[in-house]
């Protein structure tokens, strides 16, 4: 009898609490914490695994969906203040999407396709894409092919390494690195192709930069006229080399790095990682490192470094004029959030790095947080939303996509 009473009180209390959180969810602000003067709203929801996003010049938003059973690209048609979802097209998974020179480009995990845009800037024939690049390697791990363009009609494609650290046995405790890591021949770098040539494959492109484990977020910086990328650093230092790294070191290290790339640059994966605490390039334990030994200086240094494993999935240089002056030409980064940190996961936010004269000019800061719906994520699937893509709207608002529930957020500034 007593336990029945407790049960009743319990049910009553949880109803009250649930009702309370429901009201919160209905508010215009979708639970994000932003700097003063900014506000957020949800412009679309339940789209599926919304990866990267891109605007056409009319303000319609194209969303690349991963693992969707009813089409891999969806256009959200702009009606001024709101968006209308149109039927999805393209029967392939993938991440990359961008607009370049009258075409919509989108990538699967092996190819890059493009669709001609009509004078309304919409895809006129969604069933007939042209194949721009084909035959790229996809072995599961790090298979997303993110894309970006420069101002000279070149297309840049990330081809992630299908491995954590090029061990003889991938992710096996104590397994040493493969000599002259052969993965780098066809992956672990950024490849450059022609934007307007069809059916290109490895032989038609050039390996623009190498030694990059996996890049999901990348953007062409129009001020410097160079490509910037965000690398996902290697995982599991403690799991694989417990004698060299504590769990705590393994949670913080290595850095998630931003690199500015020039042709033929080598960022050094798998031979090294960047230690943001020592501010040094350190030889990887698979290649004889001990956590202190410094790597060869022929490898490039990062432009900026962030705590480990937060998974930077999008990079965007802000060129709008809606946001305060501080944000002009700076970098927004969508951190998808970690899985291999202990005892608690980090990330699940959008960060900002101020830039001056094409270089980071100050520490990074959290710009928008609260996507996960909780302050403490222990297991990754507790995060209700995970930032994955970024785009700048025609009015200078920042849009963020989420690939858990398929929510699209709009973040604006009002003076």
């Amino acid at each position: 009898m007593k336990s029945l009473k407790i049960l009743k009180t319990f049910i009553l209390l949880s109803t009250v609490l649930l009702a309370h959180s429901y009201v919160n969810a209905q508010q215009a602000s979708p639970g994000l914490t932003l700097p003063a003067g900014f506000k957020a709203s949800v412009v679309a929801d339940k789209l599926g695994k919304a990866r990267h996003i891109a605007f056409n010049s009319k303000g319609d938003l194209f969303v690349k969906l991963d693992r969707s059973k009813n089409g891999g690209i969806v256009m959200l048609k702009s009606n001024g203040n709101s968006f209308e979802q149109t039927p999805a097209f393209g029967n392939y998974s993938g991440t990359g999407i961008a607009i370049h020179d009258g075409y919509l480009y989108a990538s699967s995990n092996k190819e890059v396709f493009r669709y001609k845009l009509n004078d309304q800037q919409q895809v006129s024939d969604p069933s007939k894409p042209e194949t721009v690049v084909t035959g790229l390697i996809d072995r599961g791990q790090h298979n997303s092919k993110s894309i970006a363009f420069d101002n000279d009609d070149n297309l840049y494609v990330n081809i992630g390494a299908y491995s954590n650290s090029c061990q003889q046995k991938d992710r096996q405790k104590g397994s040493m690195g493969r000599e002259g890591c052969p993965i780098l021949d066809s992956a672990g770098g950024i490849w450059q192709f022609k934007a307007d040539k069809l059916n290109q494959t490895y032989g038609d492109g050039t390996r623009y930069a190498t030694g990059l484990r996996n890049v999901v977020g990348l953007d062409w910086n129009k001020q410097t006229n160079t490509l910037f990328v965000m690398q996902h650093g290697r995982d599991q230092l403690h799991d694989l080399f417990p004698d060299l790294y504590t769990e705590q070191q393994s949670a913080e290290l290595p850095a998630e790095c931003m690199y500015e790339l020039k042709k033929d640059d080598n960022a050094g994966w798998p031979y090294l990682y960047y230690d943001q605490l020592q501010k040094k390039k350190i030889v990887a334990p698979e290649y004889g490192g001990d956590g202190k030994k410094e790597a060869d200086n022929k490898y490039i240094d990062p432009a900026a470094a962030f705590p480990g494993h937060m998974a930077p999935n999008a990079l965007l240089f802000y060129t709008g004029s809606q946001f305060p002056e501080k944000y002009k030409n700076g970098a927004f980064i969508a951190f998808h959030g970690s899985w291999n940190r202990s005892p608690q996961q980090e990330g699940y936010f959008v960060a900002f790095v101020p830039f001056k004269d094409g270089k980071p000019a100050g520490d990074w800061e959290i710009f928008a947080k609260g996507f996960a719906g909780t302050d403490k994520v222990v297991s990754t699937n507790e995060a209700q939303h995970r930032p994955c893509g970024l785009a700048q709207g025609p009015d200078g608002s920042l849009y963020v996509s989420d690939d858990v529930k398929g929510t699209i957020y709009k973040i604006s500034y009002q003076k």
Partner: protein
Amino acid sequence: MRFFLAFVFLSTCFSINAQTKKASTAKTSVTAVSSIAAGKAVYTQYCVTCHQANGGGVPNLNPPLIKTSQVLGEKTKLINILLKGLDTHEEINGDTYENVMPSQSFLTDKQIADVLTYVRNSFGNKASAVVAADVKTARAKIK
């Protein structure tokens, strides 16, 4: 705040209550209970990074170990996944996972039995225990 504390307190009482009840009705044997405890330690050291503390895995990367047909299914198949590792990327309850599972054959027969017994009786799973002899037999067949 007071309200919230009361809620936490009550729900804790409630779940403890529910757990005792479950354990007693299932009549879990004493050996299985100690195997589950030992298995949790193995899980925390060797599996938690990928499969996560709540067994929920990582979307698109590492599969959940919650009520999948394999986890609740035939023991030899499950033991072989641990001994050989897994890199087939076949569908697991309707989704696929991109990461690789390294071989766990460095664990002893007992550790493998314990961790599988733990997994099969945690995260909402309920399935029979795996014993070291099962692992020994499976390991002998691989060599």
